[in-house]
């Protein structure tokens, strides 16, 4: 066990953890931040996506030791009192159906926006390439991001 400090959604946390624990499990089980989901456990589906130091990562593939001292953003850190423009557009455009991929999708969408204010449709598709959604067929997720882009 090792004491590890990290910043999540702007708040400093200290966890006592096996250094090889997955960031996903620390978030969900220890810190009760259950917004981040597990879909496959092998970095394929992106449901566990979070942003670490500005970059999109699969939290199921990040040992907690690697997150030491890092800044992490999860779905819980997006909205303040009201939803962010991106979340509002997911509502309006139908970007969320069953909702299980949605936290990861929002993180991927946020990462796209961090890279580029006005991404092209191709750049949006590529940016979401690591996040699987079985409900939407992606169109309305892409449209949610485009709608946010046009107001950026």
């Amino acid at each position, binding site marked *: 066990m090792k004491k590890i400090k990290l910043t999540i959604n702007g708040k400093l946390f200290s966890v006592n953890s096996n250094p090889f624990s997955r960031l996903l499990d620390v978030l969900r089980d220890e810190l009760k931040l259950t917004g981040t989901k597990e879909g496959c456990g092998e970095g394929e589906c992106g449901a566990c996506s979070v942003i670490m130091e500005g970059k999109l990562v699969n939290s199921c593939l990040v040992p907690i030791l690697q997150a030491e001292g890092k800044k992490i953003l999860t779905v819980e850190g997006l909205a303040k009192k009201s939803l962010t423009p991106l979340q509002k557009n997911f509502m309006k455009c139908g970007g*969320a159906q069953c*909702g299980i991929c949605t936290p990861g999708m929002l993180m991927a969408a946020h990462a796209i926006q961090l890279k580029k204010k006005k991404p092209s449709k191709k750049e949006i598709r590529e940016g979401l390439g690591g996040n699987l959604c*079985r409900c939407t067929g992606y169109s309305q997720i892409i449209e949610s991001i485009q709608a946010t882009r046009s107001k950026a």
Partner: protein
Amino acid sequence: MTWVGKSALRKEGEKKLRGEAKYIDDITFPKMIFGITVRSPIARGILKQIEYLPGVDWDSIIKVTAKDIPGENYVALIEKDQPYLAEEKINHAEEPILLLAHADKNLLEKARKLVKFHIQPLPTVYTLEESLKQKEIVWGSNNILKTYAIDRGNVEAAFKTAHSVIEGTYSTGAQEQLYIEPNGVIAIANEKDGVTVWGSMQCPYYVHKALVPLFGLPPNKIRVVQTETGGGFGGKEEYPSVISGHAALLAWKSKLPVKMIYDRMEDMVATTKRHPSKTHIRTAFDKNHKLLALDIDFTIDGGAYATLSSVVLSRGTLHASGPYFSPNIKIRSRAVATNSPPHGAFRGFGAPQSLFAIERHMEFCAKTLKLDPIKLRKANLVKQGETLGCGQIVKEKIKLASVLDHALQASDYNKKRKIFAKNNKNNPIKKGIGIAVFMHGAGFTGSGETFLASIAAVKATPEGKIQVLTSNTEIGQGTNTVFSQMAADALGIDFSDIEVAQPDTSFVPNSGPTVASRTTMIVGKLVELAAKDLKQKLIAAQLLKENYSRQEFVAACKKYLKDVGDLKGMSQYKAPPNVIWDDKKYQGDAYGTYAWATYIAETSTDTRTFETKVDKFWAFQEVGKVINPNLARGQIIGGVAQGIGYALYEDIIWKDGRMANNKMSNYIMPTTLDIPDIEVKFMELPYSYGGGGSKGIGELPLDGPAPAILNAMENAIGIEINQIPVTPERLMALMESNPL
């Protein structure tokens, strides 16, 4: 202001977007422990002994075998053939034998490896072809789970007078539902309080029905609660009865709450998939290319137990002749048993398989007859007053020809066929455009809805809201939202005045399962009727006039609650008067109504890498009244995406009756880079017996993509492809044996 027809925002959307929606794995109980399932390593045999090898403290681990079952050891659904835990006979790979529970998940995984099953192997049957040979009998007396026969007119006589006779064989593979949230439940069970299960599921009352005999308890001692569900697509229709029973058995023995969540590999290897199928079609045409006779032989692989195969087979059989009229029809269909894990419900439920066959066949007939495939279809589309394959006379107005014309126009189908033919000549990347014309019957098949006799209710809450009470689940498709829209309109109040109760069998009536594209159409209608019943109670109590404002309605509800007591409206399903199905003869009005569609795919096939990509897709359909255009469009696009996967990517590799590629990294579902822009268009002919005038649409979009894509590929490369999925490997083999 009315709400039906408007894109009301998803009712539970905000909590999903905030990450606050609670799925089963997000929930914990004090003292909760974890459960796992230890499964058979081989597909068929006799279990002789369970050996617990040293290495863990076995006394600290809760163990459940078939001997620990307090009630009866079968999963109640249709037949009683499937045990919760194998006793002696093993009938499929990954069959559950032993359940373990402990507070430490890591210890459980260690223990799993230390269980040794001594099984005497028996000969196995892995394919429907082998099963039909009946060399080895693995189910009943002949491997046949169910058969249907349809005979109308005189098929053999028609073949004798035919101008042309064309036949073909078509097969489809298994497909994994691949909801992103795996199956999972939490159970609490003891003799005093009975059994409670929370979990990810489509049909709480199916789970309820299964737990009653398993525990031998009265129905009121069993409670099933659906938690937020991360996709179902049929994969959480019948399977949750199994995992719920397992977790509840461990909870019963341990006297502690038990959480059982499958990881992705277990979910893929052990749970249901779409039935593989094989269809042989023989058609007779007259000299004007009108169908004289259809002779269809349809077989599906049901896996090791009967589960839902009989009803999947029925829907497949009833859709097998497609949207065409033929005066003479013969259909023989059967579901056969193999030693694969049972195949089960998956969006479309047999129809994608048989419609794939007929729509590939019509294309093949056109090619053989050197006819325009559109002309051949148009010459044979069923018209109002004519009969479908099941013997159902189409009594309602039908706009399929117009749907077809609109899709042709929007996609520029005719022009593209010419341009592609010209451009493909010197290009290694061959473009094609293909079509599928089809229908999907909504609601339970035959007299299913009458037997279900679903009940819905609404009630007034002390806070001045109206709560909808049904057992129909929100699984992403928008149940909460469309029920709220329909209830709001039935009561003349606002969308925000409606709440939808979490399905919990301790207080919601049984409005039937969330399957068969029935929720909006059938249960939505019941919600409307229940709302009207509530309104009538207020009027009868003279608290409300015929015309009222929203404020007056809320005030009347509050006064009723104060002065009279509980205010509840109810309704129960009654078949529309003109819908008659004959179970004995297996003919009649198979469905209350149908949605009708034309889908067109434009594809590129690279003849060097054998990869195919869908470049553009048009999904046009007549679906009754569209309740929520935004949600409806989402349903269609999502279904088309699954259909694209079914056609091109999603290949289950079977090894000794077991899925060998049970990971998301080697079972390939479409990503954002594989799904093109999909143009969706709805035409509306409101259906008076459907909620808000709707027809069911949930399953429809899975039916069309595979035949449309394969027809486009045939158009591009000129080779018959009659088997899905068309992976690059399969296409390479086909093209090497049929050089361009």
